[in-house]
């Protein structure tokens, strides 16, 4: 359980670091943004503004801009819609909260299920190993003894 918690923590910490690549590539950046005019991924769009954005991204990468700097510059000009992800406020916040909440609820349910299952196993009367009644076992033993004789 501790190992799982550590792995989740490591993933959470690694996410922002990954989002701030120092030397992004043109193709990676184009795949991250949405064309504000046609609302398709930038790398699939040839609209005038998409072409302008590609030229700017190319220039910025050549100037050594980090992924974060490019992102924040485009966000300032085009708003959060350019990232193609739901906003972190208002009703759109649910898109972020619900999956995390779902994972939490699922974890609780799995934990509760496991607890119920394990307590049933330890608390109930132990069944016979073979599932036979003592009378049936005696008869089977007798038959086997006959064969061995």
């Amino acid at each position, binding site marked *: 359980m501790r190992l799982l918690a550590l792995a989740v923590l490591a993933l959470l910490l690694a996410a922002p670091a990954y989002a701030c690549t120092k030397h992004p590539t043109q193709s990676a950046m184009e795949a991250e943004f949405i064309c504000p005019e046609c609302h398709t991924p930038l790398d699939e769009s040839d609209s005038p503004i998409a072409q302008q954005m590609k030229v700017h991204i190319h220039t910025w990468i050549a100037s050594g801009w980090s992924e974060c700097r490019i992102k924040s510059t485009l*966000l300032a000009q085009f708003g959060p*819609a350019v990232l193609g992800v739901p906003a972190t406020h208002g009703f759109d916040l649910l898109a972020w909260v619900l999956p995390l909440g779902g994972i939490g609820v699922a974890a609780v349910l799995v934990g509760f299920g496991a607890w119920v299952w394990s307590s049933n196993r330890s608390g109930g009367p132990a069944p016979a190993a073979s599932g036979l009644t003592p009378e049936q076992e005696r008869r089977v033993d007798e038959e086997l003894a006959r064969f061995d004789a």
Partner: protein
Amino acid sequence: MRRLPQALAVTVVVGLLALLVWDVVHSSGGKVAKEVDSGHVYAAPAFTRPYVNRKGNLTFASLRGKVVVVNFWQSYCAPCTQEARTLAAASRRWRADKNVVFLGVDVQDFRSAGLKFLRRFGITYPNVSDDGSLVGRFGVTGYPETFFVDRRGRVVPMPSVGGQAGHIVGPATQQLIAAGIKQALTT
């Protein structure tokens, strides 16, 4: 025991539906355009945005006391290119009237591209840039669109001219601009 998860699931679904209804009811998106196009006067959203063709920011409230012609445009929009000279000419025509100002809102655009556009068409009135949030508050659905704000900071409906009423959707003409300004001046 079996009823508890069912009740929880129903509660969650009802809660989400209630949240959706609340969001739809309280969302101001599109309300300005809708109200004005229905012939109603509606308070213009308050905003502060950076200038495109000047330094610093513009606070919309600073224009209170004047009729404001608010034009939403993009440098990469073809109909905006069609109307740009008309707007430039209209702003020159109304320059003598100190009660009327023009304000451009360059939406989701690069500042360099916006500046190039303004210079190309000789537009000298103030223009601000918008990352798309103001568009949602005004209820703009395409470009260009033009609204008329009266001296009390209210968006007023333009009278019906050539099939257009409320606010101008598409390239503005001198006739439409004049009708909108006159309406805003009289309210």
